[in-house]
């Protein structure tokens, strides 16, 4: 338990200026990481949501991270798309099973279904909505990284862990001897 006493001693010996300097350098590390991440997403046109439901098993398991790509190519049957239903927070990752593209104005109507579901997604759409339109689609899934999303899922479902993690990292940096 010697390290507990050492930590308590170093917390007691902190001065305000030291703490502020350390806090600022910690914040710089976090924000530069965030800037890099967001810039990469901007440049490549991809985002990385996490799969939270099991409706696309066994292709995508809960906890996998997806790479989404959005471009002007029209959406065709078989594409795995991510979309938000009006009023729902959680985006849904499902496969397009029907496409109807109108001659007159190029308007596209889509129907989706999760691979592991028996029914198509009409019961998920807003009341009275029978089809999805391309503007509802956030992007097409082009790749996956298994298990990479578990950290996000655990943090979202048990928010207390976020505070514990930030608190622990903060304590570590503030009390380091360097």
């Amino acid at each position, binding site marked *: 338990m010697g390290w507990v006493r050492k930590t308590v001693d170093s917390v007691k010996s902190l001065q305000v200026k030291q703490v502020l300097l350390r806090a600022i350098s910690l914040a710089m590390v976090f924000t530069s990481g965030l800037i890099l991440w967001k810039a990469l997403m901007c440049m490549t046109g991809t985002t990385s949501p996490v799969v939270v439901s099991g409706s696309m098993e066994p292709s995508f398991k809960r906890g996998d991270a997806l790479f989404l790509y959005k471009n002007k190519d029209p959406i065709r049957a*078989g594409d795995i798309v991510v979309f938000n239903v009006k009023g729902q927070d959680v985006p849904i990752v499902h496969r397009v099973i029907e496409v109807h593209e109108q*001659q007159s104005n190029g308007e596209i109507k889509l129907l989706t279904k999760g691979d592991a579901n028996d029914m198509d997604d009409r019961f998920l759409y807003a009341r009275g909505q029978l089809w999805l339109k391309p503007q509802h689609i956030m992007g097409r899934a082009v790749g996956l990284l298994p298990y990479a999303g578990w950290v996000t899922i655990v943090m979202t479902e048990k928010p207390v862990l976020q505070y514990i993690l930030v608190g622990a990292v903060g304590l570590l940096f503030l009390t380091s001897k360097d």
Partner: protein
Amino acid sequence: MHSFGFRANAVLTFGITILAFICAMASVSDNFNSPRPSAEIQILNINWFQKQHGNDEASLTMNITADLQSLFTWNTKQVFVFIAAEYETPKNALNQVSLWDAIIPAKEHAKFWVQTANKYRFVDQGNNLRGKHFNLTLHWHVMPKTGKMFANKLVIPGYRLPEEYR
């Protein structure tokens, strides 16, 4: 510099970087695979062809033979295969309706023969299916264990629905 915290942090960061690099390499190795899949679809019978709730609907029985073994690599988790009917109507430049799909979990199951009715309903937006010429496209999506997904298709033209409802 040698406290437990810093050592744990260094190990974790290095470990995660290496893991990410390995995943990227695994995905790159998939590009060296040149697949030669083949498939044949026969329509054995049009079971029925009716107008339901204002829209045409058909039910058909298909005979599907395919050899998709060359799609599998060591980085392949499974192959998702589906058949879509593609046709044109006066109102719609393109219609794609998925009729059947299956998941192939391993290379051994990738050479198959299946006789089945359409799993999903073949419904038109309207009444345009009588005498309609359509293509059957066999699509395959290779789902990797990690990294980039590959998808392609085989278009088989020359199918036709009957002129009259039955």
